């Protein structure tokens, strides 16, 4: 029917997710009908630049958006309707079923509480138990994320730890209640290169060991290559390409993905200009009719500006929303990898 072959029901199913921020001045449609799914034990990367809607999507999955946000669509986690959760069920859901790792550990952690207090509170809220039990579990978790001298670090305040350790602590807090779904919002963007690779490898290993579904938001193709099984490329609030990461990075089907690949600096010849995508990401208050990428696309035709392209399935497991997929792909299939 739709070209996908799914062995089992997905862990997370997102259909037509739409998030609008309405203010007196303008209505911003941050997410405009995003559709994707995640299987248990899979790592999906939401790839996009600023304004693509990737962070808003992530927060919508955990119901972390402010009240002014109008959320529509369907989000199902293991059959449970996430958007309909209220009160106690919602509180148990957040942290218990789904946990998030944020980009800036310095602002995501409360500076007046120690790491240990964060962990113990989290564990006792979702699993109960005595303080001593929670503390023991906290030490286990810090060991899991490879924080040395775990027992001593429990009593450290966030500002006493280095950036890499803080991020690991945040991962430990996120994992403390054994969530089925881990959401990560650019967790390594603020870290140094040598620390970033450590944290990425740690996340990869933890995900393999614990088997939770993971959604990773990033703007960096390199991060996607290192950690993802599948990648969903977002632009102006929509998922415009999706597929296994190796395939998408080797042979993109959407001109935007192709442009992103070409413009990411990696081993280009120094004496040539980088093939940059002209213009800037669109203003979400005034989206053009038709394909939102058309103003910047070298392959755009009149048909592209009429209506937003429907999904096309050029290969099993791959999706792209573009009328010119045929022109993007064949020029690349057959190229040496």
């Amino acid at each position, binding site marked *: 029917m739709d070209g996908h072959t799914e062995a089992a029901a997905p862990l997370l199913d997102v259909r037509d997710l739409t998030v609008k921020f309405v203010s007196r001045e303008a209505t911003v449609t941050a997410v405009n009908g995003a559709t994707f799914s995640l299987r248990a034990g899979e790592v999906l990367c939401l790839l996009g630049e600023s304004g693509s809607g990737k962070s808003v999507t992530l927060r919508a999955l955990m119901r972390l958006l402010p009240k002014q946000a109008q959320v529509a669509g369907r989000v199902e986690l293991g059959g449970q309707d996430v958007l309909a959760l209220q009160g106690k069920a919602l509180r148990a859901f957040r942290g218990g079923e789904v946990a998030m790792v944020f980009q800036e550990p310095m602002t995501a952690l409360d500076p007046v509480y120690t790491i240990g207090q964060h962990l113990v509170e989290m564990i006792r809220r979702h699993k109960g138990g005595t303080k001593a039990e929670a503390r023991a579990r906290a030490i286990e978790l810090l060991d899991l994320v490879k924080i040395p001298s775990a027992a001593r670090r429990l009593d450290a305040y966030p500002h006493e730890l*280095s950036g890499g350790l803080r991020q690991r602590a945040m991962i430990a807090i996120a994992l403390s209640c054994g969530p089925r779904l881990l959401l990560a919002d650019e967790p390594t963007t603020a870290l140094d290169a040598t620390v970033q690779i450590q944290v990425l490898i740690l996340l990869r290993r933890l995900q393999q060991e614990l088997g939770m579904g993971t959604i990773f938001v990033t703007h960096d193709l390199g991060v996607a290559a290192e950690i993802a099984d599948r990648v969903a490329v977002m632009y102006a609030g929509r998922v415009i390409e999706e597929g296994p990461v190796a395939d998408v*990075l080797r042979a993109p089907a959407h001109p935007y993905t192709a442009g992103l690949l070409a413009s990411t*600096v990696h081993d280009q010849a120094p004496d040539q200009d*980088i093939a940059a995508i002209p213009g800037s990401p669109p203003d979400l208050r005034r989206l053009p009719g038709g394909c939102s990428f058309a103003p910047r696309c070298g392959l755009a035709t009149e048909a592209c500006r009429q209506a937003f392209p429907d999904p096309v399935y050029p290969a099993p497991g791959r999706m792209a929303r573009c009328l010119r997929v045929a022109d993007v792909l064949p020029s690349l299939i057959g190229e040496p990898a």
Partner: protein
Amino acid sequence: MSAAMEVQPYVDPRDRGGAAQPMLIARELQRYFRVKGAGKGAVVRAVDGVSFTLFKGETLGVVGESGCGKSTLARLLLHLVVPDSGELVFDGDAVGETGGVNIGDLRRQVQMVFQDSYSSLNPRMPVQDSIAFGPMVNGRSKTEARRIAHEILVKVGLRPDLFGPRYPHELSGGQKQRVNIARALAVGPRMVILDEAVSALDKSVEAQVLNLLRQLKRTLNLTYLFISHDLNVVRYISDRVLVMYLGQVVELGPAAEVFARARHPYTRALLGSRLSMDAGRRIEAPPLVGDPPSPIDPPSGCRFRTRCPHAESVCEARMPTLGHWEDRSSHVAACHMTTPDSGHSLAGSA
């Protein structure tokens, strides 16, 4: 030799020594910051004995992680932060000393482009006024400064009538960064220091700005000092690369050389931390464990020894020096392994 082959290189009227004289020579620059409340006498050794030469017309890339001192170094070169010791020689003249070039003159010839943050442009000033500020301060009239601002806006690819009157919050990240570049170029410098100038931009916009920087360098005969933590960008844009660790230079050499045959273990670790763009060839083990140590209390001797797989007793005892470099093609590293007769088991003999 036919006339068609020999193209006279452009010579700036302010040029004093010709192409052979380096644009900038830094010798043993040092700057410590006192830390409040962390105990008496605690200092951050932000820049600790940095020496290098910047040749005219080249792009020198400076890489390092947080705490390595590269941003402080940038500010030392412009005397925005005054060095505790060390000397700076700009085009043959000592900086800040009588008989040499004074700070005001230096700032007319060397400018800096900052990272695009919310504080890089005055939020209350239209963009063209921010750009015109430099020329106006340097003696131009208001109308002439505005004209210069418009000219520069065209050069960076922004239409002056459309973008000039805008305020910073009405611009995208890439546009703001073009404005930052325009502001630096408005006073007509010969050298530009770019401090993480593309780090905060989306990747597609980063590519645009890098192309623009290359083009401007050609058309305006500029010399660049490009500071970044992103190795791929540095590799692309630099002729030579300088690697910093905890306030010191650990490696210096031509970009292609350093990236292909790095001589310092830290450089090798940095290069090994670069993310592969190929999902089939993932990095399995991190090249370095732990976080960079704090610049407040660096390890004795070689500062990298606490994380170096090849550290020996000589590394704790003596700080390695960078070694002598003669010209642009020299490739040196501050490591006992590469210094003959240093006492390290892997060092050769002279």
